[in-house]
């Protein structure tokens, strides 16, 4: 049964990728893309319900493992992938209309989009640390193609850097995985089971600490590159700024989460084996560093998508910090923050995308008076900005509230850094966005109507999470937090 549901979840995007590889250049490719994403989302919902009702499950001779933690990411991923596909339909048409894209590029885009979803879902659901690596690599490869979609010098450069840096990072992660396996096979013996997270988790107490320490460093540096932790983040702003906006949305909203999920999985093992807070401390350190550097980098940005890329780094740092702290509250907060950040950030990228299309440039100095030219885009930007800046009653504040207060309780020394960083980030983003939203305009109307439904759906969800969390969702998160400890 579970096998079937999982199969559906994984095969639909794969199939979609195949179909779109064939029909990608048809006029209804965009609709097909959305349809596939929707089916994926539906499958993920079914799976989620199943898991919430009857606890963690393994499938396909334990090769796949689904618990409350990753099923929550699965659902999130499928959902955002779906809304993004909805958004990208008109967006890409407008891009084509502006002559930035050819049909061939669209063809590539759609198929890669599906494969990318597929890769992420694999990475999330697999139980095998090795397969996690394979899937991450695959996700990288697909997104590299997506980032370089425009074939402009800038996009090529961005893609190249992305490719090389993440390639190296991932390679290091592989070495970490090998070390993990090396430690594991001495407990679990040769063969298949030695890389299965469930088994590792059962015996984590007996794994050799020195090896795991080493392994974790490689895993952290490796997957951390994809999470965008400072100082491994260098690829992230370029890739976000130069790729098509829907891709920026899914990169920020999803891929970073997936990578972080891998880090968290390994953290559980390592801390379990070392019996101390080694991995947690490392994560906290990287998290703080990322928050600090990112927030200061925000100041000097001129390109709007680049700026929000840095804000993604900042938030990822915050989440990493939260998971690093550990404990029910912090972990809960971390997951909540993952959710709201994905939703908000993708929503912002949607709005930004249309704003940029209206003005024809990503330079913030020349984007003005969005509220005047189209209130929907303007309000989308304004509310999205305030949401991402952690203004109540939006959900981002809820998680930041928990993270900061817990930090104040557990690790007071960290809070001044957080205080400064959040203040600086607020000043930077708010100061940049205010004239963009307000004031007199410079924009021109669009050939196709923009798709802003996803924006407001996301923001509405975020608002809801800030004011009211359905008990179902709540104890789902609680269970997941309990799993990670």
């Amino acid at each position, binding site marked *: 049964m579970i096998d079937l549901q999982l199969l559906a979840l994984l095969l639909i995007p794969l199939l979609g990728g195949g179909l779109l590889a064939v029909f990608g250049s048809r006029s209804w490719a965009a609709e097909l893309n959305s349809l596939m994403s929707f089916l994926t989302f539906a499958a993920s919902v079914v799976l989620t319900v199943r898991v919430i009702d009857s606890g963690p499950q393994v499938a396909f001779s334990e090769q796949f493992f689904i618990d409350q933690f990753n099923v929550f990411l699965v659902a999130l991923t499928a959902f955002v992938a779906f809304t993004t596909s909805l958004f990208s339909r008109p967006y890409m048409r407008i891009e084509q209309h502006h002559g930035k894209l050819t049909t061939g590029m669209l063809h590539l885009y759609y198929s890669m989009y599906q494969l990318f979803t597929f890769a992420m879902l694999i990475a999330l659901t697999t139980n095998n640390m090795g397969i996690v690596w394979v899937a991450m690599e695959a996700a990288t490869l697909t997104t590299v193609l997506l980032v370089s979609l425009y074939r402009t010098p800038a996009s090529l450069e961005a893609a190249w850097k992305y490719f090389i840096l993440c*390639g*190296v990072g991932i390679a290091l992660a592989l070495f970490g995985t090998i070390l993990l396996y090396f430690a594991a096979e001495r407990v679990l013996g040769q063969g298949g089971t030695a890389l299965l997270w469930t088994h590792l988790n059962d015996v984590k107490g007996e794994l050799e600490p020195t090896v795991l320490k*080493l392994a974790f460093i490689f895993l952290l540096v490796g997957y951390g590159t994809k999470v965008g932790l400072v100082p491994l983040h260098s690829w992230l702003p370029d890739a976000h700024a130069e790729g098509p906006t829907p891709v920026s949305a899914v990169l920020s909203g999803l891929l970073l989460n997936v990578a972080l999920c891998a880090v968290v999985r390994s953290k559980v093992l390592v801390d379990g084996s070392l019996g101390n807070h080694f991995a947690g401390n490392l994560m906290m350190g990287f998290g703080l560093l990322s928050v600090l550097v990112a927030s200061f980098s925000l100041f000097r940005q001129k390109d709007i998508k680049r700026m929000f890329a840095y804000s993604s780094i900042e938030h990822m740092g915050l989440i990493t910090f939260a998971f690093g702290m550990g404990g029910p509250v912090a972990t809960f907060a971390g997951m909540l923050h993952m959710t709201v950040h994905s939703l908000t950030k993708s929503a912002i990228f949607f709005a930004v995308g249309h704003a940029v299309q209206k003005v024809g440039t990503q330079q913030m100095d020349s984007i003005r008076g969005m509220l005047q030219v189209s209130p929907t885009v303007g309000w989308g930007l304004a509310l999205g900005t305030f949401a991402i800046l952690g203004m109540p009653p939006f959900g981002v504040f809820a998680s930041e509230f928990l993270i900061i207060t817990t930090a104040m309780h557990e690790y007071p020394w960290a809070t001044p850094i957080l205080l400064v960083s959040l203040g600086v980030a607020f000043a930077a983003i708010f100061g940049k966005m205010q004239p963009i939203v307000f004031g007199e305009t410079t924009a021109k109307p669009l050939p196709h109507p923009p798709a802003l439904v996803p924006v407001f759906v996301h923001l509405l969800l975020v608002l809801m999470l800030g004011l009211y969390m359905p008990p179902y969702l709540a104890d789902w998160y609680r269970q997941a937090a309990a799993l990670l400890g």
Partner: protein
Amino acid sequence: MHIPFTLQFINLLAALLLLVSFAMLAQRRILSLVNLFAWQGALLALSTFIVAYSSNQHHLYYSAGLTLLLKVLLLPWLLHRLMRKLNVRWDVETLINIPTTMLFGIALVIFAFNLAAPISQLAEGITRGLIGIALACVLLSLLMMLTRRKAVTQVVAFLSLENGLFFAATSATQGMPLVVELGIALDVLVATFIFGIFFFQIRETFDSLDIGHMEKLKDD
């Protein structure tokens, strides 16, 4: 104590592997770099084969074959074709001059061995000390990536890094599960193809493969 012949042989191969890595680090000509890469692949395949034989695990035979196919024949061939198509012959001088790089390399090797020492104590059977060499190879390739200017050399370095990892996977630990290895191999293949595509795109956009052209994106 009596060290079995196979182990001696593997250690020899490992040493050779390290030697090749150094050679690549020192090498300026791209073509010979690719050849060295092919040699590295061959050593890798051989060592995998021997490990498979000594600890008779059948799936290691497969991966040995895979390595042979992929890293000794396919990738070098691809690279050669690229060279010819893009007619790049000489690598411009590296960022840091060769002797310094070598010194760095040696330091790295020592560092890697020290790092791996406690682990090697744990390893039983034939794989004593191989982790260290694998780690050294990885770090050396990384160093190479840092110091090279051309896109192609970076890619080769990247692939040899992959080799180091593979060596660690097969020889140090007696082979990862087959699925994983297949996946890894697949990724490497695809990656290479994509690299190939990129070379052409980069060439036609910047009409050169010098990475120096790709430093436009920055904060200012």
